[in-house]
């Protein structure tokens, strides 16, 4: 833009960000009325952002939520704790099972991490076994 100062460009940005005061807005529009270049620039900025705003909102397949749930770890630490306080004897008996479940949880975590490094399309942790 060869219009003398950058002042109007920053005013345009303020107006587009809806952060301009009434006075700033008036200054800009008065200038736009007289400056073809700035007017074209402003119209183009508005034209491109309007196109962005009008983009359709994409839709996910219907089973999305289900498949997220299927991939959650089965672990329920808090539930176990609550149950344990209600059934202390059973809880004590169950303690020997804790190391096992830790191993399982740990294994799950590892699967997730290897997914992270290798990309998302490779493995889908199947939740069907649970």
């Amino acid at each position: 833009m060869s219009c003398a100062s950058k002042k109007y460009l920053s005013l345009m940005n303020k107006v587009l960000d809806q952060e301009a005061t009434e006075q700033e807005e008036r200054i800009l529009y008065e200038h736009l009325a007289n400056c073809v270049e700035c007017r074209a620039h402003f119209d183009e900025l508005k034209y491109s952002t309007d196109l962005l705003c009008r983009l359709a909102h994409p839709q996910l397949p219907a089973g999305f939520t289900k498949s997220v749930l299927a991939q959650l770890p089965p672990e329920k630490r808090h539930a176990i704790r609550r149950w344990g306080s209600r059934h202390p004897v059973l809880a004590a008996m169950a303690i020997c099972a804790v190391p096992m479940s830790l191993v399982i949880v740990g294994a799950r975590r590892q699967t997730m991490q290897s997914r992270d490094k290798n990309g998302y399309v490779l493995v889908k942790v199947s939740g069907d076994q649970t």
Partner: protein
Amino acid sequence: MDQKEKRLIKKVKKGDQQAFAELVDRYKNSVFAICFRMVGNTQEAEDLSQEAFIRAYNHIDQYDHERKFSTWLFRIATNLSIDFLRRRKTSVSLDAVVPGTEGLSLNTILPDNGELPDEQMVRRENEEMVQSEIKKLPEKYRSAVVLKYIEDLSLKEISDIMDIPVGTVKTRIHRGREMLRKNMTAGGGGQA
């Protein structure tokens, strides 16, 4: 954040997966829109969205209930998308997209507004043009622009999501907007 959402999050923190399902239903389309506009491919965007929710569930203890849940969730989604883009950059040849396939997948996700075939075609062409322009933006401008114009978020929310000052958000949006303008109106015609 409304009371219902606070209750849901409390339940999720106790391991209630049904409560989490409600949160997923609430935010899945926004999360998907962010990922899709960031990476430009529906299948990858769906995988990233799933990953975002799974992470949110696994790290729900790290969520600070003083802040908006959506801010925290969108931050996970944005960061995952950016990580994905960086990884893809290092393995471009493996992931090279077959020309035309993106258009097909885009077609399947566009809502059916009962338009005439001609209108549909024009809209689809527009969609593809805009999406390809978004894709040309450097990722730090792209995320700011997507959060602003696709999600319609305030500059403050964007600054919280991206963990950068509001001033930096503005700069990125201004630069992104300027790049879009230049590319979309190349040749000075205006009507692309």
